């Protein structure tokens, strides 16, 4: 099973298109979707449901925009609620992050890429021993044309469809 966490407030955004590409690329596998864009979603109340789904998942896909070098607050909140310090998800072999950064890679390296650290050093150690993190990022979104967006969507599709193999 695959759990896909989507976090962007606006439908029609690049992030929502990335989510659609990812779901399409999964083909026959229907993921458990955690939709953090729903303002009425009670993340604390659903923490157990999400943890159950994670405990049965082999892959976790995170789809979010990077804001201030890290995940949006709604996703941070999900980490705090579902990934408590004692939680372990030994079945997860792969974490795939699909994110976009408004500014360039250079600016992001100055900012410290805190989201990358949270995923690889806080989430990954709680997964299977050999769990790998795949990072699919689009930098410089603020000044990026439609062709680069399309290439990003293609890349997301390609790398996610390769997950099963």
């Amino acid at each position, binding site marked *: 099973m695959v759990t896909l966490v989507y976090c962007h407030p606006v439908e029609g955004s690049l992030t929502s298109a990335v989510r659609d590409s990812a779901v399409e690329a999964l083909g026959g596998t229907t993921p458990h979707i955690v939709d953090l864009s729903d303002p009425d979603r009670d993340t604390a109340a659903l923490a157990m449901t999400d943890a159950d789904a994670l405990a049965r998942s082999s892959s976790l896909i995170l789809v979010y925009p990077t804001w*201030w070098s890290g995940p949006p607050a709604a996703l941070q*909140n999900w980490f705090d609620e579902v990934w408590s310090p004692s939680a372990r998800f030994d079945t997860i072999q792969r974490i795939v992050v699909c994110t976009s950064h408004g500014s360039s890679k250079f600016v992001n390296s100055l900012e410290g890429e805190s989201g990358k*650290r*949270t995923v690889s*050093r806080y989430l990954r150690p709680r997964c299977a021993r050999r769990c790998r993190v795949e990072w699919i990022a689009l930098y410089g979104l603020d000044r990026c044309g439609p062709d680069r967006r399309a290439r990003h969507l293609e890349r997301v599709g390609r790398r996610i469809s390769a997950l099963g193999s």
Partner: protein
Amino acid sequence: MATAVLVERLSARHRVELIDLAGFGVAMTAAERRAYESDEPIVDAGVRSSAEAVTRAEVVAFVTPLQSSGLSAPVKGWIDRVLVPGVGFVIGDDGRMRPGLGHIRQLITVSVDDRSRLRRLREGDSARRVVARALRLVCGWSTRSSWIRIRSEASAAEISDAMAGAARRW
């Protein structure tokens, strides 16, 4: 309690405006995200009063519990929603981003954090990077960032001691 101690220390030299994030929505709303790139990116009254406070401020201080490796969701939500274009940074005619918080001299974070030093190192301390690097990038490298860590069961005297060294610069 940490907040009270910090306010008392800061009050000696500054006028302190206290923003309580209880009830402040964590997630940026769809309306806010749509307005983000417009000339009027602020659509919420609470966000507006925070943005006005930040625009007046010389020092910005956060008091927050930390449990995972990132900032706590309420503080990250406040940063996401308040430091929008025109407040946190300015996007020039050429599309380049320029710092918007050059008037802030000092960032202070008081984290209530019971994790061991080893665990903090292992987990990467992302929270600190968001403040000391991402936020400081829109203030300026001459802006100082103080990070004070206290235990959740610390007494007022211990909290005050923890702040003593850094507070000389505030």
